[in-house]
């Protein structure tokens, strides 16, 4: 993405106006909700209830954050669990993805196409959600464990194909063959030759996985039985959809004489900020890995 494809001068000024104008508009539309979220979290609850959310904070106040952090044990627990799921899931996922992708990238492996097809086939046909759910809850009695939150997402057809493309692109077959001739085993080749040059691929697939884990709420909604194993997003979901959750937050506070009005609107936004914060903080730095991953995935189909 160095230079533009078409040098200026050919196009008229009208095209310039159109493109900069439309892109600015789209960028604003895409960014606006984030702004409303942050502004909302720093607004005064009563004003918001009266006049609605705005692009800028209404009657600047940090009550919402104070309210959240007065009794933060639940949210810290959800944070801890999500970090745990994300770290374990991403590490296990990366390892298994690399192992699988390495095998099907080897042109001397006779069954690579059969394996690839069997992996691909899972994306076009499946038993549906309920047999899948029963597999994890009835056949394997895993409901309520933490294992079940991260396990179902460690591998995906897309990530495996992506990783295979990365491996093929960074390690030519000839190098692997010559290493074999020199007496290196498969494990040595993978750990000493392939793994060290695979950093971009690992970063990309790792970030795809990590984002998936961070943003997941669905598996908690199906499999979690105790609130202290909830994923962060599911915790937030519960908080938002159930008004009771807020009341509970109050009653579990220090004293029963809490009579202050719960700043429910702004707390919602503040919670959203707390949950999304880490992503938005690292996003500018990791964006290029996502772009490269999507690009490679798109080129190879």
């Amino acid at each position, binding site marked *: 993405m160095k230079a*533009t*494809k*078409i040098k*200026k001068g*050919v*196009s008229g000024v009208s*095209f310039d106006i159109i*493109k*900069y104008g*439309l*892109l*600015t508009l789209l*960028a604003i539309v*895409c*960014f606006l*909700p984030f702004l*409303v*979220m942050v502004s*909302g979290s720093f607004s005064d609850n009563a004003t*918001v209830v009266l006049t609605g*959310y705005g692009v800028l904070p209404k009657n600047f106040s940090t009550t919402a954050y104070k309210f959240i952090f007065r009794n933060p044990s639940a949210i810290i627990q959800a944070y801890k669990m999500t970090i745990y799921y994300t770290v374990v899931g991403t590490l296990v996922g990366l390892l*298994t993805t690399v*192992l699988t992708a390495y095998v099907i990238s080897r042109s*001397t*492996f006779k*069954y690579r196409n059969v*394996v690839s097809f*069997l992996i691909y086939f*899972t*994306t*076009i*046909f*499946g*038993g*549906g*959600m*309920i*047999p899948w759910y*029963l*597999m994890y809850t009835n*056949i394997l009695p895993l409901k309520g464990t933490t294992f079940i939150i991260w396990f179902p997402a460690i*591998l995906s057809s897309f990530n495996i194909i992506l990783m295979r493309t990365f491996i093929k692109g960074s390690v030519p077959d000839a190098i692997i063959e010559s290493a074999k001739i020199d007496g290196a085993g*498969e*494990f040595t080749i*993978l750990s000493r030759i392939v793994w060290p040059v695979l950093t971009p691929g690992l970063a990309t697939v790792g970030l795809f996985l990590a984002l998936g884990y*961070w*943003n*997941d*709420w*669905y598996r908690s909604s199906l499999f979690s039985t105790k609130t202290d194993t909830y994923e962060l*997003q599911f915790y*937030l*979901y519960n908080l938002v959809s159930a008004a009771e959750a807020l009341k509970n937050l109050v009653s579990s506070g220090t004293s029963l004489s809490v009579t202050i009005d719960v700043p429910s609107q702004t707390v919602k936004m503040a919670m*959203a900020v707390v*949950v999304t914060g880490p992503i938005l903080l690292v*996003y500018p730095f990791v964006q290029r890995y*996502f772009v490269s991953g*999507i690009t490679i995935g*798109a*080129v190879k189909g």
Partner: protein
Amino acid sequence: MATVKPKSKVAAVLEQPKAGRALGMWISAALSLVCAVITLPFLSWIKLVRISELLQSLRIDIADIRLFSSYSYFMYLWDFVTASKAGILGFPAFILIVLAVAAFIMNLIFISIVLINKVGKRGHLQFYLYGKVAAILSMLAGLYCVWYCFGWANAKTYPGSFAPTVIVYILIVLALVFYIVQKILEAEERKIYHEHGLLVEIKRNWVLFIFLIPCFVYFMINNYLPMSGIYFAFVRFNFKDGLFFSPFVKMDNFRFLIKADLWGLTYKTILYNVVFIGLGNVLQIFFAILVSQCGVKWFKKTSQTLIFMPHFVSFVIVKIFVFALLEYQTGMITNMVLNATGNRPDFYNKASYWPFIIVLVNIWKGVGYGMVVYLATIMGISDEYYEAAKIDGANIYQQIQYITLPLLKPTFVILLIYAIGGIMRGQFELFYQLVGSNAVLYPTTDILDTYIYRITVSQPTSMAYGTAAGLYQSVFGLAIVLITNAIIKKADESLALF
């Protein structure tokens, strides 16, 4: 020849390069044909021996059931098991059908391959894979039928009341011969092409097989084993028998779903997806072209970063965003409309707004991702095309129309095939988070996925309905993928998926 080694006559004939192998192929095809005929769902496979004792043990009256002395594997489940209401007999009988049908299909494939006889780089070697699979499946179907009668059905009901017919034994023997012929042919041809089989491959690359174990375990648990659960689509669930052994009820669950507006849900699911794919791709291409035309570097980077941002938040956050914009009291847009017109729009109580809201939100979330995909393709287009076009006097619009758009076509088609594969699967997270349990909005926003989720979560006994809907979704979706792929293959072979 005589001096080398004493060989069996069959092997000696088959070793002859052309005539022998061709003969072997025709023998295999003939055997395969017989196996295919036997695995048709018409011949009798299971016979009932002690009918009166059997009926007594199942506690059914002879007047309640239309009895035959023997059943084909299909009619056995469809007719006898259904009428007997003995759920315990159902699931294994269903597996028998799956095996037999798989054997039938593989035999058909093998026969057609032999008839077409398109010899590739490695001779007939790829034929044998299909032949062996067909033979093994036929054999398995036969053996499984024997086990089913003696090992399962007799043990669960009155002993000695079920027996496989002689046809099943014939099938097993023929399939075995079929397999052996294939093996001999393959062994001969492998020598010619210096190929090896699975055992040699495992011996040579056993480390790679070990590497595949996690992948195997994962896809087995997560994808392949649950596929057998499609059986639940045909049972009436009760807690006493559990899901596996609830009574088989044929297509009752589908009839229930059709009454519960299956077509309407399908229509909505597909229509939403068509709009998502169509409008989404058009906008993604449009903005990718705009970004690629930007000369100012910081603007390009910043706008791309901002446009890509919605991709990174979860749908729970999206729900909160939409709430903050559209909620009756506090929504920003609600209040803006109020200030402009004096009326407060009640978005969360009016279903007709929601198709637009959902489409907008989906595009908002996906435009950045799609833009990156198309931008990558645009960046890969050689400058020379544009230079040449400029010399010929093409303006910017003509360059886009005649160079950029045609070269984006392959990417578009690939994305399209992928998207069409999921056309029966709605964007569950999007719909579930935006609509939730707000029943007022269901008329325009309920799709198959949300419906399945809702009926199953709210009522465990409707798991069978949910499975039926899921099966319908999967089968329909698979059919659409196959048809689309076939059409695209006809138009342009290089773009097809498989």
